[in-house]
């Protein structure tokens, strides 16, 4: 005997529920959570080192890498509390990995430097309030056309390594038009991790968005 049973259950619901609960808890604790996405070498760690000192509250950083704790050491050397998650091959972080490693933390900014991969980290919510993308001018202006999902989901885009613009044929208009087709709202700010250019504006935007502006 055979019976058909209707289910209509979203496969990713469980993940989204966990992420949603964590997000609520953070909001209650006054923590604004920023999930940082882009490929290895884009300058995620460098940008954090520029951005964090400009924020008016403490920050905590979780470094996600397949292996090593190099970035965590860099953060701590700059006086920024940080912990490392090594995924040992897995392509993205998931909420339970974050909740199990985050120490007691209230009133501040939580940054997660996600695994350098443009597909799965964009797909998986981990409880963040915003997604921060850090593409660079050296990788070509066609990235929004080739990796649409990350751009579609972004809340803020920092176009990094702007100091290298004279040496590469990066077409900012083509890049921006590609982003706008996918995402009408996310600001695209030009920054330079080497000189610190552009991070003041980025910090102000994040502050405004976090609702912590009138501290």
């Amino acid at each position, binding site marked *: *005997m*055979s*019976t*058909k*049973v*209707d*289910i*209509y*259950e*979203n*496969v*990713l619901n*469980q*993940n989204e529920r966990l992420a949603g609960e964590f997000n609520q808890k953070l909001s209650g604790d006054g923590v604004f959570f920023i999930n940082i996405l882009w490929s290895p070498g884009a300058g995620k760690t460098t940008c954090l080192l520029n951005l964090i000192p400009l924020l008016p509250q403490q920050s905590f950083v979780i470094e996600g890498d397949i292996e090593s704790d190099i970035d965590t050491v860099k953060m701590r050397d700059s006086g920024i509390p940080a912990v490392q998650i090594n995924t040992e*091959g*897995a*392509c*993205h972080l*998931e909420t339970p990995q974050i909740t199990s490693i985050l120490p007691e933390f209230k009133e501040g900014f939580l940054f997660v430097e996600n695994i350098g991969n443009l*597909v*799965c980290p964009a*797909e998986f919510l981990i409880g963040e309030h915003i997604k921060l993308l850090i593409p660079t001018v050296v990788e070509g202006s066609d990235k929004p056309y080739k990796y*649409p*999902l990350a751009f*579609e989901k972004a809340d803020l885009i920092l176009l990094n390594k702007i100091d290298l613009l004279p040496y590469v044929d990066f077409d900012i208009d083509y890049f921006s038009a590609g982003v706008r*087709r*996918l995402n*009408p709202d996310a600001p695209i700010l030009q920054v330079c991790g080497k000189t610190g250019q552009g991070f003041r504006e980025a910090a102000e935007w994040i502050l405004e968005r976090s609702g912590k502006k009138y501290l």
Partner: protein
Amino acid sequence: MHEFPAAARILEIALEKAQENGADRATEIHLVMGDRCGYLFESLKLCFEAAAMGTACEKTELTVERIPAQLQCDRCGTRFVKKPFSFDCPKEGCGGSGIPTDTGREFYVKYIELSNDGSK
């Protein structure tokens, strides 16, 4: 790798339902997947087979219906199915371009087929 957690969740849903309904096994799990859901069906099947080994879903067939991705024109609001490499609105003379919508992002278990063949 990417598909494994999703396959494990599908298995969990199916095993729960089989038990609830007192079935010996599931013969089919039918999925709905949008073209932009971010998961590969073939890869999902492989992961599912591995995860289901030794369970009541060991020989379960995974089937799928696909949903094409729709865009919505930023000028005239028309919804249309995205053509490869193009975002252009298909409406004559509009010239707008399509913004992604949620149609094409579906990923759910629609139904399962359970069987009581005394195999348990």
